């Protein structure tokens, strides 16, 4: 294990109250792949937003009467984003599996963790509320006469449905990923990673960005105010959940208590 990996793992363990646990190559490998996957996920999301915004803008510039042709392109972008996210998760899984296969001793928890134990109800409720709010806004804008705005709403709908499906798919993958542990400490660390992965997954960056980027037409309207209102309310609610919710380490330990 390299010195930087050792110190990064040490820092992560300390952050989650595992001060007595020694950094091991297993933990270092698992944490490193997660860091890389998260960075790649952020880049993918940024690329998707840029791609979607470019498609939207170019179609406005090229045709005064807004064409619906960009919709298949945007759908392809959503599908591309979902496939890429799925591949990233598969990569993490593959690295975990390879690390687990080398362990002479395997440890598991005798009780299966459900989504509520891993993600937590506050996060789940917030995610559903954020998606519902953004979807309701996009649907309410559809009957507006402005064709540019209508097309923007369609983009938001496609993006939200795609991103929602992606979250469900990835969360399922996370919950069903095998435990990779050699002792109690690495089992606890594994559950902490699961909780961290799940919380990072439901951060609603796309839900906040899509309406704010795409819901504008020839003039400003109530939809812009609602889109900004949703972002502000979402940021406040998300901040409150993050400060009030049980810390990741404590959530993982709670999940591990056999009921």
């Amino acid at each position, binding site marked *: 294990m390299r010195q930087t990996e050792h110190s990064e793992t040490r820092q992560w363990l300390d952050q989650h109250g595992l001060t007595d646990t020694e950094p091991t190559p297993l933990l270092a490998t698992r944490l490193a792949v997660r860091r890389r996957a998260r960075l790649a996920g952020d880049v993918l999301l940024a690329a998707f937003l840029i791609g979607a915004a470019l498609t939207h803008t170019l179609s406005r510039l090229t045709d005064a009467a807004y064409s619906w042709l960009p919709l298949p392109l945007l759908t392809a972008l959503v599908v591309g984003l979902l496939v890429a996210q799925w591949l990233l998760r598969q990569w993490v899984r593959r690295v975990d599996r390879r690390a687990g296969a080398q362990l*002479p*001793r*395997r*440890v598991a928890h*005798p009780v*299966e963790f459900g989504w509520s134990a891993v993600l937590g109800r506050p996060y789940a409720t917030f995610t559903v509320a954020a998606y519902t709010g953004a979807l309701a806004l996009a649907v309410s804008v559809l009957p507006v006469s402005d064709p540019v705005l209508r097309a923007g709403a369609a983009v938001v709908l496609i993006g939200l449905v795609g991103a929602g499906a992606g979250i469900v798919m990835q969360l399922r993958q996370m919950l069903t990923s095998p435990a990779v542990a050699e002792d*109690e400490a690495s089992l606890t660390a594994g559950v902490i990673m699961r909780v961290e992965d799940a919380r990072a997954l439901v951060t609603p960056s796309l839900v906040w960005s899509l309406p704010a980027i795409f819901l504008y037409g020839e003039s400003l309207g109530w939809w812009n105010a609602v889109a900004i209102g949703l972002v502000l309310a979402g940021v406040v609610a998300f901040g409150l959940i993050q400060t009030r919710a049980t810390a990741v380490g404590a959530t993982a330990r709670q999940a591990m208590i*056999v*009921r």
Partner: protein
Amino acid sequence: MIVIDAASPTPPYEQLRAQLARQIQDRSLAVGTRLPTVRRLAADLGLAVNTVGRAYRELEEAGLIETRGRAGSFVTAAGDQALEQAHRAARDYATIIARSGIDPAEAIRIVQAALGQPATP
């Protein structure tokens, strides 16, 4: 926590069966707890599905767990079989006493005598 040591001379299915049985009997795994699916536990422990399946089958034969179709495998009350039998016998005894009209205090003295304990005044 379940530990499977590949270097141990005890076969993995027996390691798994023994640990689950012990946890069920000492109540670390409460009655009604849902166990992971065979496939899931096999993946977690890096074992073959058949190995975990065999351990589950033996636990089921011992009455420690029960499989309810697709709902999964659950810890049963069989860990406390003796206690359950005692409760059942006590209920039967109470029915006999009530039917025969014997005084409850006398009934308790009979039980105490049967247990070889001195009767309470």
